[in-house]
């Protein structure tokens, strides 16, 4: 025990005997590590941003509909006994907010143009706590109780129909009796969300205005947002879903975001594969880099080790010494590299990574133009283990080579 401690101390001292060489090697390791950490953070940040966005804007974590409505969106098929559901939602600690929506497929018309659109009737106070819509208003204001028939249209719709704040539009849809109902609304605000598709097909009015026009009460959709927003915490979503299913009328269907957007769930899978490949290449690049410098460093010191053996150091102790030196280097480099990588991630997590010029493509992608990299603890751990393993591996071959040589020959080795 004491002997091995002694050897470890010796290895540590050896390492710092040649400060320049060690610094170069540490530098290489640190740089490689920061690169890998940045890479993982970049990729994971981009995709998780996309998924979180899709959840925040489009699906929420849970949605509840009448089963008939899901099969075929008929304005008559409102939720069955919504009171039971909202009562339970109010008591669940996991639930941050929910929004009851009255939805009609119809037409929006101005003097200039008209187009088919989904009319979302929302309770203003509820909706802002479920989706980030209130923060996406580029002109005007979010809906409130003031005024008669206010409406929020997207920037895209406003451009198509030549609308500005205060403009009048006419909304037309089929009411409860199957007749065509229509009314004038005034543009209260103009929004732009990260999703171009959503913007093209949606506008917002007040729940009560739309329901009154349709001659109905109730809602077609309840969207639920949980306090836990990390998309990986899917168990929480399932737990809340189970609680809701227990009380809800069987005629309603409760879906989680993976059911609402199966493509999103698949993207998670694809992200895993492509990430693994990229990170694999990085780890190999970094690992081989470390192996290479290690090899060089150990071989250059063949004579030194020859001397050690000549003065009577046992072969296995020399072998262990070489491995220990290498391991020290790996541990130090790994720690420093992770520290630097972590610091960089914290910094980027604070400032964000901007991809401004690609805004349009990102919009279709459902991602913000500014996103934040993320690296998990287990990823840090994996990187650290890889570095130390690579450095040990790198020492094995030269160590064996040196030991095979008679000390005299090793001593005689020239540079």
């Amino acid at each position, binding site marked *: 025990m004491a002997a091995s401690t002694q050897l470890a101390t010796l290895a540590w001292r050896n390492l710092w005997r040649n400060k320049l060489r060690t610094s170069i090697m540490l530098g290489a390791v640190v*740089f490689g590590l920061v690169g890998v950490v940045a890479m993982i953070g970049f990729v994971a940040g981009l995709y998780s941003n996309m998924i979180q966005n899709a959840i925040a804007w489009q699906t929420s974590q849970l949605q509840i509909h009448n089963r008939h409505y899901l099969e*075929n969106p008929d304005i008559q098929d409102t939720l069955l006994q919504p009171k039971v559901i909202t009562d339970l939602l109010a008591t669940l600690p996991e639930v941050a907010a929910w929004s009851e929506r009255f939805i009609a497929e119809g037409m929006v018309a101005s003097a200039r143009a008209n187009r088919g659109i989904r009319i979302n009737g929302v309770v203003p106070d509820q909706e802002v706590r479920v989706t980030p819509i209130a923060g996406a208003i580029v002109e005007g204001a979010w809906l409130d109780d003031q005024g008669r028939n206010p409406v929020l249209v997207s920037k895209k719709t406003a451009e198509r129909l030549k609308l500005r704040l205060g403009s009048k539009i006419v909304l037309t849809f089929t009411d409860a009796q199957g007749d065509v109902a229509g009314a004038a609304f005034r543009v209260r605000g103009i929004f732009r969300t990260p999703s171009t598709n959503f913007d093209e097909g949606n506008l917002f009015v007040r729940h009560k205005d739309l329901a009154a026009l349709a001659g109905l009460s109730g809602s077609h959709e309840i969207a639920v947002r949980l306090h836990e927003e990390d998309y990986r915490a899917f168990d929480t979503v399932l737990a809340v879903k189970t609680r809701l299913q227990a009380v809800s009328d069987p005629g309603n269907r409760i879906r989680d975001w993976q059911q609402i957007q199966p493509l999103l769930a*698949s993207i998670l899978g694809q992200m895993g594969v492509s990430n693994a*490949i990229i990170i694999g290449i990085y780890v190999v690049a970094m690992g081989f*880099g470390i192996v290479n410098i290690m090899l060089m460093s150990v071989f250059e010191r063949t004579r030194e080790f020859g001397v050690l053996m000549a003065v009577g150091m046992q072969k296995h102790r020399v072998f262990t010494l070489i491995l220990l030196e290498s391991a020290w280097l790996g541990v130090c480099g790994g720690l420093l590299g992770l520290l630097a990588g972590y610091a960089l991630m914290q910094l980027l997590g604070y400032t964000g990574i901007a991809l401004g010029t690609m805004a349009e493509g*990102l*919009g279709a*992608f459902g991602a913000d133009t500014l996103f934040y990299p993320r690296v998990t603890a287990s990823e840090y751990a994996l990187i650290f283990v890889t570095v130390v393993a690579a450095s040990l591996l790198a020492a094995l071959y030269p160590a064996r080579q040196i030991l095979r040589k008679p000390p005299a020959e090793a001593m005689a080795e020239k*540079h």
Partner: protein
Amino acid sequence: MKLAWRNLWRQKRRTLLTAAALALALALSLFMRSIQEGSYANNIDNAARFATGLVQIQHPGFQQSQSIDDLVPMADAFIAPVQTLPEVSHLLPRLESFALAAGDQRSKGALVMAGIPSLENGYAKLEERLVAGDFLDDDDAQVLLGEGLAQFLELNVGDEVVLYGQGYRGQTAAGLYRIKGLLRFPVPQLDSQLVYLPLPLAQGLFSTGDQISAWVMHTHQLSQLPALESKLHALYPDHAVLDWQALAPEMAQQILMDRAGGLFMMYLLYGVVGFGLFATLLMMTLERQREFAVMLATGLLRGRLLLLVMIESLFIAALGLMMGLAIAVPVLLYLAAHPIQLTGQTAHMMQELGWDPILPALVAPWLFINQIGIVLMLLLLCLLYPLWRILRLELVSALKGGAHGG
């Protein structure tokens, strides 16, 4: 020169190690870029087949109006010049418009697409999307429906669907067609909206005569696209020649963004391998300080010493590049011929999208030249500091301090 050559072989191991570092840098960057570019080309190819084709000839007003009035001739006389172009691998006539699709109880706005089923099948692989019924024959008087649309209309294979809309120049377009099969698309906009007709049937429905919305073209290689485009512009000055980037700008942006991410990854990789290379070179220089000092002491001019080191480095570089290529080329050639097969959920998703679940590698001369150039630049950059150190080498201390005169 000779001295440099001899120096190299005096220290085989060191030479090999340095060359290996270079080889590694080259092989990895080649590998990554080749896979990256390969998957971009694959994505574009897939997406184009799935939607717009790589390039289209349209009526100049069609892209803006999407109107059934803005058509191009389908006649041989019109398209004959394209048929002789060597770049074109697929050439398909398509007609696109909107109509109301109605079942017995319900109706819904539908996207009507028409083409020649046998040609489309060889290109867009439509038949693979069939989930019920049979695929169309070229002269069928039947149609295919998106599964979602059929569900909404409460129709099934064998039922009849009404298409009703506006035909060419204000004529009424109305038709009643038997459903031969159902298609499933992962994209809801298509699944819940698409009606697919054989071209002659659609031309009858919309009274377009011998006209179509677009000639859709595909090239053998993605790299042939610019050449094809310029030829088409010259051949059809009065028509719109639009490539996939103009036809589907959002998809183009997505691919661009993916590319930006890819570039970011690439630079990071260069950083990682470059620093490894730098460390190796610097170390090598430091270890040889005494050797250099001896040479200078025996009367070698500093300038000639620098030259010597540079020539040595050049040899090492050449060796490293050869080694790198020797590793990378066979692997890449193999991967180009036998693309990586994806498995599991990813593969499933890509298949749903109608894409082959593969990651092909792109093997192109420009890619190799680029990477070799970049690696050489890296080497040059990495050499700067070691050379500077040699220039500033202090003879006495270097001689005294030996190899470890750090």
